[in-house]
Structure formats: structure tokens, C-alpha cells
């Protein structure tokens, strides 16, 4: 079966883990890895795994996009360089999956709105954040049953799984995730909190989701909706697990989740890495299906500046 050729931009934790996820896909093939540090571990790993590499940033990739038939690019750099990367690659007809908090394209949580986005022929979709991917399905599972006034999530991440990009840009992480709790999760107001825990051995990623419903929560229907949603997420992140809850306290619904990764690039504690890369891969696969079915005509955007 024909596969869609992909480029990975950013050779940090997320970019490197993506290689494993994409290699496993029946629809995608990783061809290029782009970094900025010739000595980075990610680039070395990519080369070992048979990818072409450049340490000259996106400009090092551009001359090869058309000749190598790259149709989808994953950007795991930073919010600050993403817009420029996206503009350059969109101009060459490459669809962008944005794993930074830049969020210049529509926000995507596969179990909530991927089908809709794939049908709309988007040129750039944003994967929000690891915490967003781990929590917004639950917020949505509650808000699809009854209206949610306020949704709040707390993500605890193992220190070793949080790279320098995320550390230096925690505010962007907060803003993007809070916004997505509203836009995709369906809460009227959203708030995201992140905690980085250095415990050794490292803790598995934990997420606590709390929602305030407008009316008294229908406990049975909300519980059923949450369990169904967990099953959907488990299709691409098998280590997504309910630890406690849902627990009801007045109009407050709380759910305590844990995310174990597959242990591809980083060990299993880094569920935050997996849920992000698995969601991005799932998203790219959906677009790849559209491309392969001929429904999604990618071409250079001559009008773009």
C-alpha cells in the first residue's frame, strides 16, 4: 500500500518519539528529520533509523520537499518558529501538523473533532498540548451530556519527560490548553495547570479533570460517557487509564487519569510524550486516508506570499 511521506521538524523528545509512531503506521512513512543542532541525539537516532537528516532547520529541508514527495510535516519546535515553518511548507503544498502551542490552525483532539477537520481540507492543524490531549476528551465527554460552566485540568509531568522548549514556554502551554478546554472541550470557561515533578523513579503522567456542570450532574450518563470516551482514546494510546472517579461533589465532577507511554523513545512514564505523538500520528493518518482517496488535493499554494 502506498504511504504518505512525512518530514519531522524538531529533534527533541517529541520529534524523536514521532519517528517510532510514524514508522508503525500503515499509512505514513517518515523520510526527513530536521534539527538545528548537528550533535543532537534526536538527529543521530533518526539517521540510525534510516531517515534523511539536516541540522540547518526548515531551510535545509525545503529544497528536497518536492523531489522527495513530502506531503505532511510534523512541527515539534516552538511556538515562536512554527508560523514561519508553516508558511514555508504550506507554500510547497505540505500539510502541517503543529505540535507546538502556536495554534495558528484549528485545534484538534482526534476523538472529538478529527473527522470534521479532515473533511474541511485544513492545511495546518494544531495538537494543543500533551495535557490537552489527555484531558479534553474527558471534558468533552461530560459537556456532551450536559452543559459545563467551568472545566479545569491539572497535568503532572515527570521532570525528565519535559524538554527545554516546554520549560521555557510554560505560559504558552497554559494559554493554549485553557483555550482548547473551552473551544474543543465545550466548557464555557477553561483553566489549565501544569506541575513538573522530579521524583525518581519518575512518576507516570497524571491528569485530573474537574468540571462544574450547570445543573446537578446525571451521574449514570456522565459515567457511561466518560468510560466510552476512555475506550476511544485507548485505541491510539493503550496506556490511557482511569485511576479514580468519576467522583461527584455537588455539581463538581472529578476524574483522575494516568497515562503510561509505549516506551518508544523515553520510558513508559513519559505518557505525555506518547499521547501527543500518538494523537498527531492518528491525525496525520486521517488526512493521509483523504489524500490517498483523492479527496484531498494538495498542491502548492501559488497565492501565498
Amino acid at each position: 500500500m502506498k504511504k504518505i511521506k512525512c518530514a519531522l521538524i524538531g529533534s527533541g523528545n517529541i520529534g524523536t518519539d514521532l519517528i517510532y509512531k510514524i514508522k508503525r503506521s500503515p499509512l505514513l512513512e517518515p523520510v526527513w528529520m530536521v534539527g538545528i543542532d548537528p550533535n543532537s541525539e534526536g538527529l543521530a537516532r533518526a539517521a540510525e533509523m534510516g531517515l534523511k537528516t539536516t541540522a540547518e532547520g526548515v531551510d535545509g529541508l525545503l529544497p528536497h520537499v518536492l523531489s522527495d514527495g513530502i506531503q505532511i510535516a510534523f512541527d515539534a519546535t516552538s511556538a515562536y518558529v512554527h508560523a514561519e515553518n508553516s508558511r514555508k511548507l504550506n507554500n510547497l503544498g505540505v500539510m502541517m501538523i503543529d505540535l507546538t502551542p502556536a495554534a495558528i490552525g484549528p485545534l484538534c483532539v482526534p476523538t472529538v473533532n478529527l473527522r470534521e477537520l479532515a473533511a474541511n481540507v485544513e492545511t495546518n492543524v494544531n495538537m494543543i498540548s500533551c495535557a490537552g490531549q489527555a484531558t479534553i476528551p474527558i471534558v468533552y465527554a461530560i459537556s456532551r451530556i450536559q452543559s459545563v460552566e467551568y472545566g479545569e485540568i491539572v497535568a503532572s509531568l515527570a521532570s525528565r519527560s519535559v524538554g527545554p522548549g516546554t520549560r521555557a514556554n510554560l505560559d504558552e502551554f497554559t494559554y493554549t490548553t485553557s483555550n482548547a478546554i473551552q473551544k474543543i472541550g465545550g466548557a464555557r470557561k477553561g483553566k489549565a495547570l501544569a506541575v513538573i515533578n522530579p521524583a525518581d523513579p519518575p512518576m507516570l503522567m497524571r491528569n485530573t479533570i474537574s468540571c462544574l456542570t450547570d445543573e446537578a450532574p446525571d451521574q449514570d450518563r456522565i459515567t457511561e460517557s466518560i468510560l466510552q470516551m476512555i475506550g476511544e482514546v485507548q485505541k491510539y494510546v493503550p496506556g490511557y487509564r482511569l485511576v479514580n472517579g468519576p467522583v461527584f461533589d455537588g455539581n463538581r465532577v472529578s476524574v483522575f487519569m494516568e497515562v503510561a507511554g509505549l516506551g518508544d523513545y523515553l520510558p513508559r512514564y513519559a505518557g505525555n510524550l506518547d499521547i501527543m505523538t500518538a494523537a498527531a500520528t492518528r491525525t496525520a493518518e486521517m488526512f493521509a486516508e483523504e489524500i490517498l482517496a483523492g479527496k484531498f488535493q494538495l498542491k502548492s499554494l501559488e497565492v501565498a506570499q
Partner: protein
Amino acid sequence: MIQTTALNDRKIIIHDMSLRDGMHAKREQITIDQMVRIATALDEAGVPLIQVTHGGGLGGNSLQHGFALHTNEEYLQAVVPKMKNAKISVLLIPGLGTMKELQSAYDCGARSVHVATHCTEADTSPQHIAFARKLGMDTTGFLMMAHLNDAEGLAKQGKLMESYGAQTIYITDSAGYMLPAHVKERIAALRAVLNPETEIGFHGHHNLGMGIANSIAAVEEGATRIDASVAGLGAGAGNTPLEVFVAVCDRMGIQTGCDLFKLMDLAEDVIVPMMEHIVRVDRASLTLGFAGVYSTFLLHAKRAGERFGIPARDILIELGRKKMIGGQEDMIVDTAMTLAKERGLLKSVAA
């Protein structure tokens, strides 16, 4: 009465925490009137820096950390105009508070900030420290749960914060776990690497009754800023009790510029009567200090314990064992539920 000591005439800056750390002890329910009354009395007593925010700082209003009676802006706008000499500070924990909220606090008149990270995660603070400096604020890097990092590690973390622009670096004993020897080696390690103009501070909790002794130990090694709360109003068994610390400083000849008798009166006439529980070393707060658990977890653990039928001490010990840190208050209910399941008190939902 005043002894001649090696610290004679040493000048230090006392930073009051009653209206920020004290918010934890009051479940964030301090009124505007109480804030203004206490801050005004502190100002009159010569306390130069007073922190005013939700216990969790900027962005603290949340299900996770509780909702205060008012927004941080409302508290600041009420307190700042009443100050004659004192400067008002705020707390900012990256991951919870953001630069937008810092700008807003600055616009309300805050002029000093503790930018706080866990003691190994200083590199989550560069944006916020740089932004605070850009605003012209007196900027502190605040290394929390400092007992979980060794002296050398803390020196590196403090040096990082200094490189982002922090003018003061704090050793923060959030769990009230440290003993004077721990404090001394950590402050000395910081002093050895920081630039001479960078100040060092210490923030204590009184869970093992060591607040005063630890703060004096810090001053002996060169700390010039000490956080304290009147009558200890703060999380856990409270902070270093401010009026007691001032009395000890007076005896030792350390210059604080604070009026002891005014502070005593404030403690006795205003702060103690407003306590919902007497802030002291009791079974649960002693457990915090003994097991090295974040002081703010105390009241959360008591509530979760009552709800799920698990003693607060068992929950706190388990949180300590799992190395949970400040900000992970959600894990208190989670841990209580997991313990309740293990003890056959709660059934799990099939998943």
C-alpha cells in the same frame, strides 16, 4: 538584654507572609477589611515587604487550590493605596500563574515578586523572572521544597535563576522539614556561587518547631531576607512566627527595623482571633515536617480524610512516599480514594 553576638548590627529585611501563606490557613477566606487592617498594622510596625495574594499566588483561584473571597486584583487594589512605607509583593508559580497575571498585579501596584519553582525546576522560570525585571520589580527566585535537593544542586538552580535576572534567591523549606544544619549548608553553598550583590533569603515552616532557629541559621550564613508570618499564620504549622523572630533578632542585635510590641499586639488582638483553627504543631502538621510533605497539603488531607474515611496522617505519609510536590493537591483526593479502595471502603467504577 541585648547580647553581643557575631550578628550584631547585621541588617535584614523581613517579608511578611500572613496575607499570602496565611490565606492557606484561612482556606483563602480572608476578607478585604482584614487584609487592609493587617497590612496597615504591618506597615506601621515597620515591616518593609508584605505579600498579598491567594495562597497559591497569581492564578491561584481554582478548584485545585480553592477560590478566594476576592480576586488578587481586588485585594491588591484595596491594600496598596494604604501603604505608607511597605512595598507589596506577590507570588507567581509558573504553570499556575502567568505573565499576564503578573502585569495585572503590577498595574495594581505590586512591586516585588517571588517567582517560585520546585527546587529542581528553576528552568521553568526564565520568562517570568525576565518579565518581572522588565517591569522593574524587586525579583526573587524562590526554590520550593528545598529539602528535596542537596546544597550543590540548589546552588546550581539558584545560579540559573540569577542568570535569568533574579536579584534574590530563596531557600524555601515548604515542608518544614529542615534542621539548622541543612539550612546552613544550603545557604552557604548558594553564597559561594552567587554574585556578591545577589541577596539570599529563607522561607521557613514551623512544622518541627524550627522556624526561628532555621531563620537564624540562614542569617548566620549570609541570608539577608527572611519570610515570616504574624502568629505564624501560614500553611501547615505556619511560617516562622514573625513577632517571635523579631524578638530574637532584637536580642541578638540583628537589625530588622520592626517594632516588636506593635507586632505582638497585632498577633494577639487581630490574627489569633481570626484563625479558624489554631495554627500550631499538631499531629497532622508534625507529620508534614517529619515526612517532608508540602505544608499546604494539610487542610486538603484533613478534608479528604473525613470524606473517604482515611486518617489524614495516612494520606500525608503516602503523599510523601510518592514524592508529591507543591501544586499536586489533586493527588490528595486521588490518594485518599486509592487508599479507601485498598481498605474496602470504596468500590471502583469498571473501566
